[in-house]
């Protein structure tokens, strides 16, 4: 990598040209996925228009959009309820997952006692656990978050533990020659080493927290987008189900983007390409 600064030799006009070029290359990069999206919506629209599909089977895209502006669904309140459960579950998974990951690596007897239980727990379909939490904790956002945490925390624990352990052994020898304390090895080597792994786990966890929040609302809530979907299913209000799905996917994207953006700031060395 040479560090020669060539920008000074280039006149203003071609600088602008370069900005335009990068903008164009970005547009060209995203164009195929955008066009695919447009094509799917177009096919969907045409199928409904000319295929004589009943609107409770498949509503037209236009109807889905119209439903989103219907105030009787209280979209904003329902969105907030789901977003609150989802973000709460994600944050709890992050704190709980990282702490547990650190503890498991720190203490080998904890690893042998806690890890097997976690692994077995993870094989359970968490959706099937949801009714239990309703029995134990009742209805509302609290049990909802608990359900979402059981869905979302596992990848954080595993990735934290792997990231803390996956250090080149010679690097540890180097530290040991210098008689580094365990805490120094943790703070200066293991923990920063684990960050890319932790973020990979957090990204998984972010998507799973959305899933968990919706599952929670299916069984344990009268509010939120999950509850709207259940209501839409009962009344054959298919357009509202589609509208909820669109908003849920936007919520998932939002949480994921926030995590990916934090990674760029906290662990920039890992995001170089």
């Amino acid at each position, binding site marked *: 990598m040479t560090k020669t600064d060539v920008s000074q030799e280039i006149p203003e006009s071609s600088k602008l040209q370069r900005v335009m070029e990068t903008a164009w290359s970005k547009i060209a990069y995203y164009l195929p996925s955008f066009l695919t999206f447009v094509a799917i919506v177009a096919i969907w629209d045409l199928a409904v228009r000319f295929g004589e599909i009943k609107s409770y089977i498949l509503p037209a895209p236009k109807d889905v959009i119209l439903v989103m502006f219907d105030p009787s669904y209280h979209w904003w309140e329902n969105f907030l309820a789901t977003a609150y459960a989802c973000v709460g579950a994600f944050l709890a998974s992050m704190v709980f997952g990282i702490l547990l990951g650190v503890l498991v690596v720190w203490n080998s007897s904890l690893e042998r006692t806690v890890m097997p239980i976690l692994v077995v727990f993870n094989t359970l379909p968490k959706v099937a656990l949801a009714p239990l939490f309703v029995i134990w904790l009742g209805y509302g956002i609290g049990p909802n978050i608990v359900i979402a945490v059981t869905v979302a925390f596992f990848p954080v624990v595993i990735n934290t533990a792997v990231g803390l352990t996956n250090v080149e052994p010679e*690097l540890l020898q*180097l530290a040991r*020659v210098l*008689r580094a304390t365990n805490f120094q090895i943790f703070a200066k080597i293991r923990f*920063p*080493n684990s960050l890319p792994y932790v973020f990979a786990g957090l990204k998984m966890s972010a998507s799973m927290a959305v899933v968990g929040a919706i599952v929670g609302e299916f069984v344990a809530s009268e509010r939120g987008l999950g509850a709207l979907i259940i209501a839409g299913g009962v009344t054959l209000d298919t357009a509202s189900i589609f509208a909820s799905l669109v908003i849920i996917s936007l919520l998932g994207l939002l949480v994921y983007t926030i995590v990916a953006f934090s990674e760029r700031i906290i*662990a920039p*060395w890992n995001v*170089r390409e």
Partner: protein
Amino acid sequence: MANTIISLKGLSKEFTKGKEKFLAVSNVTIDVEEGELVAIVGPSGCGKSTILKILSGLYDYEAGTMELGIEGEGFDTGRDIGFVFQQPLLLKWRKILENVLLPAEILGLPAKESRERASDLLHMVGLTEFADAYPYQLSGGMQQRASIARALIHDPKIILMDEPFGALDALNREKMNLELMRIWKESNKTILFVTHDIQEAVFLGTQVAVLTASPARMAGVLDIDLPQPRKLGLRATEKFGTYSKDIYHLLGLDQIQ
């Protein structure tokens, strides 16, 4: 004038693999004077890396004696040994200057002086421009130079190098050999340099210790009497050839048809 800084007598170490015991190194005897660059050469499995790990206190030994440090000066392995491995082992998340500072931080050396020293060392290894670069922005040879600077940051008395240029291509290795010559002269350190390359050992070493595998033992020590500073042209000289031949002989390679 010269002071002995490393003195090994009959040093042996066993490893146990399952129920079997085998010798990792045996009967290593060598005296290293302060400011020498001693090369340890041998095939894989001859225990040459094990010797470095015994010296740095990572491994125990079963028999023999090991004396480190100049008499009356005291020796502290933590502070007085710098280690360079085959891989640069730089921390991906630290800039080059911060990587060089790692040992100073672990040892709790004063921050300001250490930073100045780190800049000086980066200058010595020719990486001043890259102080603020991340490791991935550097080539393999440059990364290894950074790791040499890191090994020098706490001003240790002895530098242990475990095949430091083994991962580089042949041309870069030549270049790094010359660089190391210069760094060694400028820093006045005692260096133990492990390699499996006979030419490299003769070119760099003031002494060359020759180790054989199966049985793992020391076959001999050669004093290399070639003019300092060493230049690449030396390799074409008769004397250089003779030393190489002697080492081939000690390793038993000249008997293979």
